[in-house]
């Protein structure tokens, strides 16, 4: 199982029956593949609907039905379309149970940076700032490091997407919760030692007595 699949499988376990979930572009999108069939999770697409379904078969694309990346998608029964102000009313108003997003950097205060690298990448924040502020639970899903460089830091260096909003970080190495006292490693992938995870993390990890094996 590669890193991305490990992460997506573990994130899926955080979702509950009846949840309204917004998945960011990229790795987070994979989470949808691992939701148990008997569990009712509705995915929101911030460009204007709830009830995002799988990618359409080739030749069955509908140009009026795309996701927030502009890619053809489908809807599931019970879906509903709305305009952008309603869509972000849902997000900002706390009606999204969980959002799953990638990160460039995240820190022990729960700060997140995932929208720009000054002088390099300036794609714009899109809906990320609203999602991180508004969703009840913010789950960062990402590979633990970027080409060996730390991404889980004492303090984000890149421009923030939002301050103090991250609840949980899930990587191929383990599961971390961001609390007042810092980042707690609650689960560890048995392929790694605590020392290895700490070495891959700039922030000082708090290791609880009941550290669990990562459920995948």
């Amino acid at each position, binding site marked *: 199982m590669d890193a991305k699949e490990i992460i997506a499988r573990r994130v899926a376990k955080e979702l509950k029956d009846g949840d309204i979930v917004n998945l960011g572009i990229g790795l987070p999108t994979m989470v949808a593949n691992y939701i148990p069939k008997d569990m009712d999770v509705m995915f929101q697409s911030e460009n204007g609907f709830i009830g995002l379904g799988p990618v359409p078969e080739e030749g069955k694309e509908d140009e009026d039905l795309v996701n927030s990346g502009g890619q053809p998608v489908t809807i599931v029964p019970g879906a509903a379309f709305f305009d952008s102000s309603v869509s972000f*009313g849902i997000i900002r108003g706390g009606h999204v149970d969980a959002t799953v997003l990638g990160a460039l950097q995240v820190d022990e205060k729960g700060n997140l940076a995932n929208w720009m690298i000054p002088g390099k990448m300036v794609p714009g924040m899109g809906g990320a*700032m609203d999602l991180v502020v508004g969703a009840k639970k913010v789950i960062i899903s990402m590979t633990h490091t970027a080409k060996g460089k730390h991404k889980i830091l004492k303090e984000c260096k890149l421009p*923030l997407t939002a301050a103090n909003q991250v609840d949980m970080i899930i990587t191929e190495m383990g599961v971390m919760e961001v609390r007042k006292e810092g980042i707690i490693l609650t689960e560890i992938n048995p392929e790694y030692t605590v020392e290895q995870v700490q070495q891959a993390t700039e922030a000082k990890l708090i290791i609880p007595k009941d550290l669990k094996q990562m459920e995948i």
Partner: protein
Amino acid sequence: MINKIVTLEEAMSHIKDGMTVMIGGFMAAGTPEKFMDALVEKGVKNLTLIGNDAGWPDRGIGKLLINKQAKKMIASHIGLNPEAGNQMNAGTLEMELVPQGTLAERIRAGGNGLGGLLTPTGVGTIVEEGKQKIEVDGVEYLLEKPLKADIALISASIADKRGNLYFNKATKNFNPLMATAADIVIVGAEKIVEVGEIDPNDVMTPGLFVDYMVEV
């Protein structure tokens, strides 16, 4: 009943150099593509464009950027049209990046006669630069100002002859919001039907907002 149906040429005649133009759609879904082509051909310059995104290089708002017709853009995401970032970095295109939910609310406020709105989105990020911070019941918010435009170019799936509009699926997005917020609202309608063919319950934008329509 006043006839709002005009030719493409008549419709485009309202758009002059230096104007502020809102353009509906989300990654080109729901963008009035024929209007983009007509504006490229017409060659109006120094536009301030307001839209969710910069489209694609060959679709949506992107066409106007590639043709260097904008001096400023207000958008939430420009990552899928590299030309936008290039012009921004070269200093030839002034770029105001706005969180997507805030962009939607600012346009709505402009159309609804509100003087602004307080949002938690962007607090603690560079988005707060230059903005008034207001505390309400112990929480800090940014005061975001309304947005209006000279022209709104929007698309509709169905319009009736009075200008009542219906948007199919994910083409709704920013279109109904922009319809409220410009001095002149021009609709590219896929289909124009007789008055009464859209159920009064299902009208998504009342015709009172619409000035001109082109069947595209």
